[in-house]
């Protein structure tokens, strides 16, 4: 990093938002960099179609970044962006019935090249080939089990376990009382236990 240049990675979300409001493009890109994976993951696991998830994640960021003036810094930026992502995905789900999850690519893919191009890429890549295959299968089973949950349970479970958000923040994101979030997560976990039992994962 050249001397005198601001290190965006060391700044809080609120500080980066303030810089974006001042018109610094780098700040916008920093926010995208911080949240593109969490937002895309949540939306993908809700709508279960890579192409649609890309479009919805893009819509989410466009809405958020063009409305930074309306962001209230008293609240967490993550809560705000997850709330918009969740609502955007739910709107889409209400309009169209969800399709079957495929970790091997979009169900719209017709050729091997399209299948490869639409395959989801996990973040971690430091496994040996055997572990990778095993984890990929394990992951696929869990992904499959999650995809059968109700959208509300799915969102709550993903925000809790994948994003590590506390219950009160999940309640804020989903716009439901804290008790409802606890119920969603508990019921979601119980359903997952039942679905994964036959796979001897649990």
């Amino acid at each position: 990093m050249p001397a005198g240049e601001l290190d965006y990675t060391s700044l809080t979300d609120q500080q980066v938002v303030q810089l974006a409001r001042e018109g610094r493009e780098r700040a916008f890109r920093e926010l995208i960099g911080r949240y593109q994976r969490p937002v895309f993951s949540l939306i993908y696991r809700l709508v279960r179609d890579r192409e649609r998830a890309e479009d919805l994640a893009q819509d989410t960021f466009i809405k958020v970044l063009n409305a930074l003036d309306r962001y209230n810094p008293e609240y967490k930026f993550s809560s705000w962006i997850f709330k918009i992502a969740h609502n955007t995905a739910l709107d889409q789900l209400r309009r169209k019935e969800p399709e079957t999850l495929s970790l091997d690519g979009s169900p719209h893919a017709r050729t091997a090249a399209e299948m490869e191009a639409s395959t989801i890429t996990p973040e971690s890549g430091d496994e040996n080939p055997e572990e990778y295959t095993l984890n990929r299968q394990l992951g696929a089973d869990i992904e499959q089990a999650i995809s059968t949950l109700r959208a509300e349970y799915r969102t709550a479970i993903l925000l809790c376990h994948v994003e590590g958000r506390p219950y009160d923040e999940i309640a804020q994101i989903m716009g439901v009382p804290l008790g409802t979030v606890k119920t969603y997560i508990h019921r979601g976990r119980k359903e997952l236990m039942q679905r994964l039992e036959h796979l001897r994962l649990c």
Partner: protein
Amino acid sequence: MTEIQHLTAERLEAYVEGLLDQSDRVVTESHLVGCARCQHELDEWLALFAALSDLPELEPSPNFADRVMAHVRVSPRQAWQQQAARASAALARVLPRTTFGWGLATAFLALPILLGGGLTIWLLSQSYMTPRSIWAFFTDQLVEGVRAVASAALSWMLQTGIAAWIAERGGGLVATAGASGVGLIAAAAALVTMLSIWVLYRNLIRTPSRNSTNYALFSF
């Protein structure tokens, strides 16, 4: 033979999440030591938690940021734009979001109008009531209300000593500027007040128009 009381799924789930307090945790752990069934169930919960936390975050396709940035306004926001956006967001939070909400708000706002209108119609339907008498009744009530407020304000001023303070300062002013000087100041203040009222009237009540025909239509 005593029946063994096994741990509930909720208790095991809370234990794995670390939500149990010290005493509950001790009781749970002592039960787990001697109960294979609950230990097995605990292992299932642990496996589920581990599997969920191992789920990877997924990566959108390359150039995602560029595609987003192509639709984002990067220009710096002026202070007034930020304030306007915040005001608009605050208004949006207050406004109803659903058709039912709008219906409820409209009904709430319409209620006094409907009640007032209904009362007026009922009063006018009475043989002994005329529009003039109703008007006289309401203006009398208004005047009485204003008098009551003025009287209360005056008595408050007398009690708190504000009236005495004004009289004292006024006396001092008369002593230094003379009666004619005070009269001059009062006349200037009255002139400024009248001018202010006129400006307010022209701008807020009777909006000036460049169109003379319209001006004539709205003049009274």
